[in-house]
């Protein structure tokens, strides 16, 4: 069907007129693109959608899946997602290059107990890792954890073999003895710990910055695309209200939340409960404090640590990306 | 020379070759004695090449059998050396290596086979060209290499399928002379295919005129012209007599096959 310009304008005018008449403006259903994955950082966003909280505030969430943080960050850069949870490391990498396309608007959770460094039988401490092979997914939170605990144990770069292995492969690699230790996050972390003879060498609580700033090696942050937020400020605020309603559910009714997540994550009930209860779900009330206080200083120190370990070239000024106006 | 059994060198018994309905050869019976230079003469499609392919073992007959030097032909045999019209030289080998090829296949040591090869390269008048590749040679030279290659293998029979057809008249004449000299020196049995009546008269001791539809031997003529077949012989009355005889036979066969195709 060919449209000439006149008929196109006529039809658009008719549609918007009808649209304006039928619904009050705030209740017009708006769409927001969310970049997610089965990782626990996305639980609030998923639950807000599954439990209907977003629908209540007139928002349709368009869920886009990304397997890696860097892929999600690329989508932020190109406009493919409007909002999403991301690991801070990828965000810091872009921030250090001066990318201003996104802002940090909330801190979803703290998952310090669901990742760590596990070693095969015979290795009892981090110091024993000298000359051994360690598998970890590069540019992730566990990567920085490994670099940090190795440094704390006095092992110089090059004295241990740190290899890049994607998350799902780590279990197989350590099981078959191809690597001596693996740093992973849930659920791979839990699977590896179930192997006979393995020992947990360190989790996030051994991370040097955790001890001082309560910052894990790669906390999750909720990001929004600045351009989108500038045009849809009200929408973002409504979104966050539904979002934190889901966070409250995770914190206060873990069984109900886990049940609702099973289909999404494909985990067993036991694994799901472990992931939900193993994280601290921050409420909306705490956000202002997190976004302006010690936590941000901790993020800055994290950036400097990444520079020290040659992961990024220079440390960005983290607070330039914080936007606490939506919470 | 391979052990000679008593009896004809080549015995073609009741040979037929059909491709579906097409009768390329039908009822061919003939015997060729050792040392004969037999020329197969005839228009296109009369089965000359087909017969040669059956003798070398490239094809199998639909009926009948062929016996060469006491052995029945059922696979490709180096005892019948073939010289192809398109030369079939191995382009990646030098002249020397091409000529030595058959000897290499027999497992003869390098020094010895190169020495033998050089001898035959000299025989065909190509000394100095041993290290050249075929694409640097003219058509006539390539055919000489081809002949030398076959000779070096010392076959019982040499088969040539219109070997000089692609060459210019002067080169052809030179090569015909050389072939006759080789024939006289080596006393090999030779089967030679040609379209040209003059070439047949020049080279053969015996001429078999063939005809198509079905392919068969129509006339078997003994060539009693004296050797060497110099200019005098070529201008003699006997030459013209033979030529006229052949001409008539070939002409009528050509007319017949032309009429057949008009249907």
């Amino acid at each position, binding site marked *: 069907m060919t449209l000439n310009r006149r008929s196109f304008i006529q039809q658009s005018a008719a549609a918007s007129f009808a649209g304006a008449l039928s619904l009050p403006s705030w209740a017009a259903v708006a769409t927001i693109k969310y970049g997610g994955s089965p990782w626990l950082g996305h639980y609030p966003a998923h639950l807000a959608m599954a439990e209907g909280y977003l629908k209540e505030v007139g928002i349709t969430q368009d869920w886009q899946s990304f397997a890696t943080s860097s892929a999600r960050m690329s989508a932020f850069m190109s406009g493919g997602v409007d909002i999403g949870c991301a690991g801070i490391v990828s965000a810091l990498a872009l921030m250090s290059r001066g990318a201003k396309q996104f802002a940090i608007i909330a801190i979803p959770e703290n998952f310090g107990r669901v990742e760590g460094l596990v070693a095969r039988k015979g290795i009892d401490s981090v110091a024993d890792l000298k000359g051994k092979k360690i598998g970890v997914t590069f540019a992730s939170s566990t990567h920085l954890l490994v670099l940090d605990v190795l440094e704390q144990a006095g092992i110089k770069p090059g004295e241990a073999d740190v290899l890049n292995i994607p998350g799902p*492969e780590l279990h197989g690699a350590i099981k078959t003895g191809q690597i001596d230790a693996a740093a992973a996050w849930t659920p791979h972390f839990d699977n590896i710990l179930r192997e006979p003879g393995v020992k947990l060498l360190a989790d996030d609580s051994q991370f040097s910055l955790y001890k001082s700033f309560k910052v894990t090696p790669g906390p999750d942050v909720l990001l929004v695309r600045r351009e989108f937020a500038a045009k849809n400020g009200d929408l973002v605020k409504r979104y966050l209200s539904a979002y934190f309603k889901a966070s409250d559910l995770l914190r206060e009714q873990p069984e109900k939340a886990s049940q609702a997540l099973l289909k999404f994550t494909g985990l067993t009930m036991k694994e799901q409960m472990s992931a939900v209860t193993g994280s601290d779900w921050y409420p909306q009330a705490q956000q202002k404090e997190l976004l302006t206080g010690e936590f941000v200083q901790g993020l800055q120190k994290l950036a400097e640590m990444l520079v020290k370990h040659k992961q990024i070239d220079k440390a960005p000024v983290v607070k330039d990306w914080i936007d606490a106006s939506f919470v | 020379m391979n052990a000679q059994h008593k009896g004809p060198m080549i015995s073609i018994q009741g040979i037929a070759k059909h491709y579906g309905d097409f009768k390329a050869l039908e009822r061919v019976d003939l015997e060729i004695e050792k040392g004969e230079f037999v020329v197969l003469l005839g228009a296109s499609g009369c089965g000359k090449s087909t017969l040669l392919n059956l003798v070398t073992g490239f094809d199998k007959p639909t009926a009948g059998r062929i016996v060469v030097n006491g052995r029945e032909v059922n696979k490709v045999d180096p005892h019948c050396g073939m010289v192809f019209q398109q030369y*079939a030289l191995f382009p990646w080998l030098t002249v020397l290596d091409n000529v030595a090829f058959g000897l290499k296949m027999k497992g003869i040591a390098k020094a010895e086979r190169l020495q033998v090869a050089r001898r035959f390269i000299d025989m065909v008048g190509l000394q100095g060209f041993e290290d050249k590749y075929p694409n640097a040679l003219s058509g006539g030279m390539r055919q000489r290499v081809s002949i030398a290659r076959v000779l070096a293998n010392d076959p019982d029979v040499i088969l040539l399928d219109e070997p000089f057809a692609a060459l210019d008249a002067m080169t052809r004449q030179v090569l015909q002379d050389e072939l006759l000299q080789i024939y006289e020196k080596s006393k090999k049995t030779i089967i030679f295919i040609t379209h040209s009546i003059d070439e047949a008269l020049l080279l053969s001791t015996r001429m078999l005129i063939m005809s198509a539809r079905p392919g068969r031997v129509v006339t078997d003529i003994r060539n009693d012209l004296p050797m060497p077949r110099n200019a005098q012989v070529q201008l003699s009355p006997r030459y013209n007599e033979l030529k006229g005889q052949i001409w008539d036979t070939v002409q009528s066969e050509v007319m017949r096959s032309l009429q057949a195709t008009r249907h």
Partner: protein
Amino acid sequence: MALAATSAASVLLFIAVWEAVCRAGLVDPIFLPPPSAALGKAAAMLGDGTFWPHILASARRVMIGFLAATAVAIPLGIFLGTSSYARAAFDPILSFLRPLPSMSWIPLSLLWFGITETQKYSIVFMGCFAPAMVYVIEATRNVDPLLVRAAQNLGANRWQVMKEVILPGSLSQILSGFKVILGLAWTCVIAAELVAAREGLGFLIMNGKEFFQTEVVVLGMVLISTTVLITDFFFRLIENWVLRWKQ
């Protein structure tokens, strides 16, 4: 001479325009870094000694995988090209292997070979083997059957025909096909270096991508392209020597 100068000038102009566009701030450097950034990174890597290990690691993996694949494909392909029964037996296996991208072999190769260089070679091998076989078999079909007849007529048995006629006769087509396979081997190396690698150009690009160091990505790509061109050049020298009879 004038043609070569035109090409060189064109390349320099392209680089100059690229640099100018970046300097003028027309493009965010994350999306397109200037060539000077890539060069700067190269200089830094030369300084701390990390430049050559990456290139040599990838080149080594490409060469060994490629040579292994071709060393098996040439004789096997010639054999399959000449024997219809052998081909009937092998064709289903080849048809199954051919569409598989080299990345799909990573999990199995890790199980079989562990985290070793052999595992990397195997990825390159698996990516190159089936296409190489296809090229070789195709090349054997284009050998002039008259040459085969001539060889048989001169006393060559089946194996001699394969070695003395089919192999040299198909070599020209095989070599031109293998230039393509060499390029394919590089894509395989990039895939192989995504997992369990510490160095290599593929690793360099992947690592740069994770940290959004786009100039590292660009540098990696340039290095791959240059290395391929250089190996291409040597390949052509070898090809000219092997096919010197063609003049």
